[in-house]
């Protein structure tokens, strides 16, 4: 993770200002490899305005057609509308002009060590994300861009909102190639040993199994035509053709949305609200109305976002494509997954459905990233376990089955003692953890069941807490701190001695795991960690 701001280090000195008046966005417009974005970009940047204006004009026409607005040349309302229309047009013109200017100034390049983005006319910004800092590369396609077949490539580094670069817009195939190239480079940069022959790997990829010539020229990177690719043929196949692992039927998505707490709430609240309006009950509407709107919009929003959900694998990354209106695709590098969680709301239990989320360093799963940590919005048990086995290849699946469904004492699991029932009358029997060679498995939840996997080497720190009540009952909580995200592995209400033992032993286990990872990175076989899917 980067403690530096992505700007400011590294290659800044090597950049140079391109002369103005260069054309063509396809070819590098100077020797340094700076490239422009698609010429339609300014229109799309102003796209929201355009749609707004179109809607406005249309609504005027409606008024005309249905005669609600009295016509006539000297009608004061009409002249006001004309002024409004003129102002709108002017605003749009200025916006598009501004967008055009900023498009002219914006350039990006794929340099040997970093992807660079320069923007701004007056306030110039040079964003610079080194390959070894890249956490993920996503393709985002807002609705309007989609109509024109354009995409945005979003490069995310660890370290918050400041550490991302939006390369917008590029045409679809180019965006995909750029994404693949950046992912490859990020991977190569993170496997220092593979660097020697990494050049061969890179050219191999950018020429691609699809036979598409590299659109972004590998500036500075030696082309090394004869270099033998390092990976096995199986991996190469997995690289060339993204292998679709799971496709979630929209019917199941809709069904899962119906069998959900939010849907239950709506089923009760909507009739109540309607009744309140019809029967004029005081005080109900102001309380329920906003809640219904909020929950409903949120629920439908996530349904729309997760429609057409598809999880595929290409080399060492999982790719997620989803969305009904905005097609989104995001990537999760398998090597960067910090923790995995399977969660089953009560109503899904009958169907055996699970929601699967991951913590990935640099993706926070909130705000703009919402849902980017989602591997499965609603997967069947077997699907979820298959994905789990892919993310953490060393997972013990028998143990996993016990973790997701088990209760009470089970082989391998250390549970909460009986005294925990005072704090936790129902779920204490589910609470517990198991330790495997590679990960800590955390089990919990009574109505909504959860199971979490945190590899030993990924634990940021361990925290043991004990409040006064727990002290009386001889209990303590252990938090295995992961990077920020949806998965928060807490093992609550362990026997105090058990909790101390876990934290103490985890010191050694985590250290050993970190050393193993270090040895693998610096040493022998970088790909052993992620064998091709079986």
């Amino acid at each position, binding site marked *: 993770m980067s403690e530096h701001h992505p700007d400011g280090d590294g290659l800044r000195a090597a950049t140079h200002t391109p002369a103005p008046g260069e054309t063509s966005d396809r070819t590098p417009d100077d020797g340094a490899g700076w490239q422009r974005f698609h010429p339609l970009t300014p229109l799309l940047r102003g796209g929201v305005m355009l749609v707004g204006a179109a809607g406005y004009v249309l609504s005027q026409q409606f008024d005309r057609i249905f005669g609600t607005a009295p016509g006539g040349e000297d009608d004061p309302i009409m002249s006001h509308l004309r002024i409004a229309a003129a102002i709108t047009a002017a605003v749009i013109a200025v916006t598009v002009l501004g967008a055009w200017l900023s498009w002219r100034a914006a350039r990006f390049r794929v340099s040997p060590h970093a992807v660079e983005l320069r923007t701004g006319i007056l306030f110039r910004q040079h964003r610079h994300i080194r390959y070894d800092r890249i956490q993920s590369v996503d393709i985002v396609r807002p609705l309007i861009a989609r109509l024109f077949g354009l995409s945005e490539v979003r490069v995310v580094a660890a370290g918050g909102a400041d550490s991302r670069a939006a390369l917008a817009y590029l045409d679809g195939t180019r965006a995909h190639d750029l994404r693949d190239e950046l992912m490859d480079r990020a991977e190569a940069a993170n496997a220092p040993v593979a660097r020697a022959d990494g050049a061969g790997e890179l050219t191999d990829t950018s020429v691609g199994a699809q036979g598409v010539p590299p659109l972004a020229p590998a500036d500075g990177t030696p082309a090394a035509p004869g270099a033998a690719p390092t990976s096995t043929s199986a991996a190469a196949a997995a690289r060339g053709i993204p292998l679709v692992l799971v496709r979630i039927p929209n019917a199941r998505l809709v069904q899962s949305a119906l069998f959900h707490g939010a849907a239950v709430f709506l089923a009760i609240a909507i009739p109540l609200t309607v009744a309140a309006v019809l029967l004029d009950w005081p005080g109900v509407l102001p309380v329920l109305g906003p809640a219904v709107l909020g929950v409903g919009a949120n629920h439908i929003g996530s349904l729309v976002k997760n429609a057409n959900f598809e999880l595929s694998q290409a080399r060492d990354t999982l790719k997620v494509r989803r969305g009904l209106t905005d097609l989104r695709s995001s990537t999760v590098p398998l090597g960067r997954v910090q923790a995995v969680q399977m969660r089953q709301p009560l109503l899904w239990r009958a169907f055996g459905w699970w929601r699967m989320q991951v913590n990935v*360093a640099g993706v926070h799963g909130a705000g703009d990233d919402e849902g980017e940590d989602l591997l499965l919005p609603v997967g069947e048990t077997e699907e979820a376990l298959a994905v789990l086995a892919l993310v953490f290849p060393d997972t013990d699946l028998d143990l996993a089955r016990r973790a997701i469904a088990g209760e009470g004492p089970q082989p391998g699991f250390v549970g909460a003692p009986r005294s925990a029932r005072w704090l936790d009358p129902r779920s204490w029997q589910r609470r517990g953890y198991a330790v495997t060679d590679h990960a800590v498995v955390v089990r919990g939840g009574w109505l909504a069941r959860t199971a979490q996997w945190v590899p030993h080497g990924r634990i*940021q*720190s361990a925290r043991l807490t004990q409040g006064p009540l727990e002290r009386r009952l001889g209990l303590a909580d252990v938090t295995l*701190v992961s990077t920020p995200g949806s998965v928060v592995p807490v093992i609550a209400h362990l026997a105090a001695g058990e909790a101390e033992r876990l934290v103490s032993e985890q010191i050694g286990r985590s250290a050993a795991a970190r050393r193993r990872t270090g040895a693998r990175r610096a040493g022998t076989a970088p790909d052993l960690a992620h064998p091709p899917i079986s």
Partner: protein
Amino acid sequence: MSETAGVPAAPAPQAPAPQAPGPQVAMDGDSGLPWVHVSPRLATARTIALLLTLLPFALASGAVAVFLWRWAWVGVAALALLALWGIWLIRRQVAFLTYAELPEEIAIRRGRMFRTLVTVPYGRMQYVDMQSGPLARRFGLASVEIHTASPSSGGDIPGLPVAEAEALRERLAARGESQRAGL
């Protein structure tokens, strides 16, 4: 592939088995680890901060009692009690704030009523800060803040004498560098 907690894995290079038992952290006692207490001056500094916060309220309440409403003395008394309780609490908190530098990690313990024990591996540290506010500076104290890739790791050690804090920061930075692990 994976054995469970009780069963030591024979072939895998499990850390705890070969390396003796490894450090045993515990909430009570020192269990043979080099726990270091923070400076007791931290209690003084925090007490002063507490009194400075409460003083304006006590004065205001006292003024009301003298000029307007006699029952406001109750407020003054309550504030005095609060101050006493705060002082007692601060002394306890500071007395129970300890840290230990272990071979692979730093462990920090705090609290008596609500106890916390944090262990942060050196290899997981992203950077280490040293901070010192105006009041702490007067007492020659500084705090060392340990940052990992997660903001909730909570590894800060307040109330170290400046020289000690500086030395600790240097040691931590050096160990972090030599044991650094990728994310």
